């Protein structure tokens, strides 16, 4: 009898089940992926037409391109990642999920799916951005580190806020207002570290800030997941 016996699966297989389910849904519907990709493609096209490879003086290129890249990544993410929990409420599946799985399992699974989605966008848009603006990145490894660290923070915060606002009215507006003060401390070091990476340097201080942000966000999500999703 399952109901009265110990569970057979631990935390990670259960979180992975949530991630795999979201991926299966996304592969069949492609709502979040399509909006992310179209936003990223549109923004890239506009930036490359408006600025082009030589629209910015050489000495300002690293700073301008670093900021533009994260603006594109952030707003692309903001169009798709917040749907993680909103989709559950819109489909009416939230009650079944809450019934069987604790908040931390669901938040972890959905954050993992959002992170993979963000990485897919970054893998396509960062090389396209560099190509269109003829932007030579001095240290691609350092840039990959920035994308990984900032991507996890952005995915986790987006997922957690999605859980918080999923059952609220005016959830899109609420998400933007609540996310602004939480995301700015993530984007500023990400932009600074990207600028350094484009110059061929590794911005250890900014990378440590990003790692600390990720640690704090992960701890907060672990402690507050039940409050955000279940209550």
């Amino acid at each position, binding site marked *: 009898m*399952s*109901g*009265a016996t110990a569970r057979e*699966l631990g935390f990670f297989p259960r979180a992975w*089940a949530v991630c795999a389910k979201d991926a299966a849904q996304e592969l069949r519907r492609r709502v979040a992926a399509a909006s992310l990709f179209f936003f990223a493609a549109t923004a890239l096209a506009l930036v490359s037409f408006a600025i082009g490879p030589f629209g910015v003086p050489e000495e300002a290129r690293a700073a301008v391109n670093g900021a533009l890249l994260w603006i594109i990544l952030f707003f692309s993410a903001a169009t798709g990642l917040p749907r993680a929990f909103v989709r559950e409420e819109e489909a009416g599946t939230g009650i079944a999920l*809450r*019934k*069987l*799985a604790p908040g931390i399992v*669901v938040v972890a699974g959905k954050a993992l799916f959002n992170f993979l989605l963000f990485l897919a966008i970054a893998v396509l848009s960062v090389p396209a951005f560099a190509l269109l603006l003829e932007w030579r990145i001095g240290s691609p490894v350092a840039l990959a580190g920035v994308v990984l660290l900032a991507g996890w923070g952005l995915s986790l915060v987006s997922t957690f806020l999605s859980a918080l606002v999923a059952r609220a009215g005016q959830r899109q507006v609420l998400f933007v207002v609540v996310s602004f003060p939480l995301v700015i401390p993530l984007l500023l070091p990400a932009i600074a570290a990207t600028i350094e990476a484009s110059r061929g340097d590794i911005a250890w201080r900014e990378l440590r800030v990003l790692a600390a942000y990720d640690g704090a966000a992960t701890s907060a999500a672990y402690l507050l997941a039940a409050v955000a999703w279940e209550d």
Partner: protein
Amino acid sequence: MASARIEAIGLSKSFSGVTLFTDVSFTLGPGVLAVTGPNGSGKTTLLKILASLLRPTSGSVRLEADGRALSGDESRTSIGWSGPDLSFYPELTAAENLSFFRRAAGFVASREDVLVRLETVGLEGVGEPVEHFSTGMKQRLRIAFADLLDPPILILDEPMSGLDSGGRAAVQRVVSSARRRGPVVLASTDVEELPEADQVLELPRREK
């Protein structure tokens, strides 16, 4: 295994100052309790409170299995619930939905086990996504969901809604199996359509 038990003690529920029901108490071991009453009397709300999906305004629910009180986390898997507002992932098939919910609950979902669940409600061999299901097929899937983990406590809200004779027979099978291992709570406006009950609880019409 010792049988399960539900004890409702003085349950009351109000929404925005409107009282749905007050001082509902009962004790139920293995057997069936039919909850009935007119529309708006609070049957669905009462069943959600029993299933730990809602909190009562006052009163409490004590759930026991194996002779001890269930913790909040244990009640997730020890209570099977279905109701009219239970929905499934429209892009996934019935088997994929049930497999996912079993894994999310922390249990292995073998193909054979899921197939048995689907056979019980007559949905075996249906490979289309749930978004193409009829009302009756969705209701059959709700029953399979409620019984997914062989829970010691089973709570079904309007279980016969939208079902044909085959679907009603499936509900009868699930209920007759579940009533041997613990409490089964069923709700309907028409108690006659429910499987035979050991107790009947009638909620009065809501006061205006």
